[in-house]
């Protein structure tokens, strides 16, 4: 099959109006806000060296914060602000999606606008400012009629830089719930769908290039004082904005929103849940690629209606418990605790996605390793890799303590690459997931945990507080509870990790329903 006859291009294209529209909208709003704040600041501080230096320093520091971290930081910040406004004024707002993404991106856009604004205004020949005064202009008239028009080309160059930065960085707003072209990239990376990754990269690069060129046209027009070029550039920008906004206008309300975290299993399960709701006549969409810490808050706040989480994750991260209880007891406790927040734990899907220490079967046999206790004896000569959060999670501490584990080296890795890494001997052991299909694919083995140091990780269905009494929803989901066993989920995950048309989350979700629907 040639690269371009792959049906996933068509699937990617079908998402384009939604992703691109949202991407443009959040970028545009961020740029407008950034300009509305930065330009007056540039004007106010242009002849005040001390505040100017402080302002530029702050903007530079913001710039050094990685884009993903800046976006992620705005989510808890806004959650806090929302709870404060709720307590004080009785009004709350959504800390999810558009608002935190826009604010973080606006902050990100400030440095080039400020710096070029100040440079542009300070670069004006003082004789011209004197002349403006001399012909009888007030300070404001001088600013509007002489200084700003003369500084405009330099300011435009800054705006151009800011626009490109914002459009590029906006792809990182997917994990905080803002749909963007990043959805392609995050989903593609997680489900090994390189068509999506490429599509997302090209789409955002093309958008950035197009906007840059159009703004460049305006900048050139201003520099050469050519009205025609300026107007052409402005018309291009307007057309681009209109083209991306029109198809997303007048859409019906989204109905139920199914959340998904940033890995393949979650993409598949959210597609499955959405299909079930739609089959029951309930309008539903998915919001995928949400950060692990964002998704629970989003459910609590009602920004999403349902999603699948894992008992051990909530136990440690939301209830902040470090003790480990047997499976059934933990679920009962968890259900009671979640009920206090009015969150419904509808039930388990039937499989566990726990952390497990994994190594190639042949290697384990050669070393005579069957359990983590056996591994401990060899650990000092072996290296271990885990996902980005594993080594800071309580179960890692519990494992180390229970078995006296001490590895030669530890590394963090993108989860999808870990399995290939351990299979090829790049690392000796990985902290994998029990439901991962790659365990079978690469002929790996998950070691037993005789001391039960790793808590249970039952996949559980959670409903938002506002859906607590929604019987239609519950009825639609009921057929899934307890039906998905570990073998089926592993196979589904293995399918999802493939790199062909049958491996898209939607296709795998259909396959999964065919398997479990009749049970």
């Amino acid at each position, binding site marked *: 099959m040639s690269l371009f006859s792959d049906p996933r291009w068509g699937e990617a294209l079908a998402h384009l109006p939604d992703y691109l529209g949202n991407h443009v909208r959040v970028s545009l709003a961020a740029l407008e806000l950034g300009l509305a704040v930065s330009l007056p600041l540039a004007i106010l501080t242009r002849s005040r060296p001390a505040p100017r230096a402080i302002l530029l320093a702050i903007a530079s520091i913001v710039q050094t914060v990685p884009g993903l971290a800046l976006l992620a930081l705005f989510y808890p910040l806004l959650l806090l602000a929302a709870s404060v406004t709720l307590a004080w004024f009785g009004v709350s707002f959504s800390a999810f999606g558009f608002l935190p993404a826009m604010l973080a991106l606006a902050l990100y856009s400030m440095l080039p606008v400020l710096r070029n604004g100040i440079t542009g205004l300070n670069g004006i020949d003082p004789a011209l400012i*004197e002349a403006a005064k*001399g*012909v009888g202009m007030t300070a404001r008239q001088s600013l509007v009629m002489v200084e700003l028009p*003369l500084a405009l080309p330099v300011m435009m160059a800054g705006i151009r830089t800011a626009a490109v930065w914002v459009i590029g960085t906006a792809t990182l707003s997917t994990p905080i719930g803002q749909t963007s072209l990043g959805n392609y990239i995050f989903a593609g990376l997680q489900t090994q769908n390189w068509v999506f990754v490429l599509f997302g990269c090209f789409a955002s690069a093309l958008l950035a290039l197009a906007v840059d060129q159009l703004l460049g046209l305006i900048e050139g027009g201003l520099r050469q004082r050519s009205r025609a070029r300026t107007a052409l550039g402005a018309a291009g920008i307007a057309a681009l904005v209109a083209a991306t906004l029109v198809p997303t206008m007048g859409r019906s309300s989204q109905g139920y929103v199914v959340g998904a975290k940033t890995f393949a299993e979650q993409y598949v399960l959210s597609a499955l849940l959405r299909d079930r709701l739609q089959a029951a006549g309930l309008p539903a969409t998915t919001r995928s690629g949400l950060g692990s810490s964002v998704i629970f808050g989003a459910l609590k706040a009602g920004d999403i209606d349902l999603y699948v989480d894992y008992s051990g994750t909530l136990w440690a991260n939301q209830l902040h418990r470090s003790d480990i209880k047997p499976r059934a007891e933990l679920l009962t406790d968890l259900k009671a605790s979640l009920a206090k927040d009015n969150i419904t734990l509808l039930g388990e899907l039937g499989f566990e996605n726990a952390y497990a220490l994994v190594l190639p079967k042949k290697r384990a046999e050669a070393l005579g390793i069957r359990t983590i206790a056996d591994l401990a004896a060899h650990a000092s000569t072996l290296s271990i890799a885990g996902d980005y959060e594993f080594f800071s999670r309580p179960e890692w501490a519990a494992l180390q303590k229970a078995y006296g584990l001490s590895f030669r080296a530890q590394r963090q890795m993108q989860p999808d690459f870990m399995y290939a890494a351990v299979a090829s001997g790049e690392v000796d052991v990985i902290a994998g997931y029990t439901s991962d299909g790659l365990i079978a694919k690469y002929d790996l083995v998950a070691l037993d945990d005789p001391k039960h140091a790793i808590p249970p990780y039952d996949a559980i269905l959670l409903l938002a507080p506002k859906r607590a009494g929604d019987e239609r929803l519950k009825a639609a989901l009921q057929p899934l509870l307890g039906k998905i066993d570990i073998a089926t989920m592993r196979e589904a995950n293995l399918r999802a990790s493939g790199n062909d048309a049958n491996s898209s989350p939607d296709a795998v979700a259909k396959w999964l329903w065919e398997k479990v629907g009749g049970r």
Partner: protein
Amino acid sequence: MPSKPAISYAHVTKSFGLLKAVDGLSLDIAEGEFVAIVGGSGSGKTTLLRLANRLIEAEGGTITVEGEDVQSVDPVALRRRIGYVFQSGGLFPHLSVADNIGITPKLLGQPAADIAARVDELLELVQLDRDAHRSRLPEALSGGQRQRVGVARALAARPRIVLMDEPFGALDPITRDALGDDYRSLHRKLGLTTVMITHDMTEAILLADRIAVMRSGQLLAQGTPTELSNSSDAYVLELLRTPRRQVERLNALLPQSGAA
């Protein structure tokens, strides 16, 4: 002397840090007079000029313009009724010739049609072809044309007083001569009061009714060229020596023109 001077400086002082740019200076400029202020760089002549329309604020003494203390009038309104010609034009590069000339009437809120008519009138007055120049940007003009536009701009709001800051300094000698003559006749025709700064004594002698010589913020001497030539001040005589020597050398080198 007429009843009231157009501009009057009385015991005016202005310092920049330790430097006394204008040091207790008094000078009256009569209505209709063309006064040239001559001095080297740093003599305070530009400061003196700018004190009159409050581009620079005085520290001590009194300055009156047409009988009013400048401190008691709004500086913006004051500047709109005094024409100012800047060194090398000071034209706004992003505005067309017409927009540059019409700027002060526009600030005064005059109707666009009146401004357009006034711009055409002024282009003719400063001898620039209307249609060829009206919509051009300053960068497309020669130095002499720019300065003509600068003069037109200064005259746009029909001021009675015009201040000129080394207006012809950056021009080639021929353009400079022509422009000086043309301005001199405008001065007479429109009944203006003109104060012009120059470091060139020859230009001052050729254009001005009266010359004021400044040095270190003080007025060293003032008077008609004839009066100045009777001065006993060594610096004044030194300044006058240059044009004299030029005349002698020119007469020696160009005997025909001397005969003519």
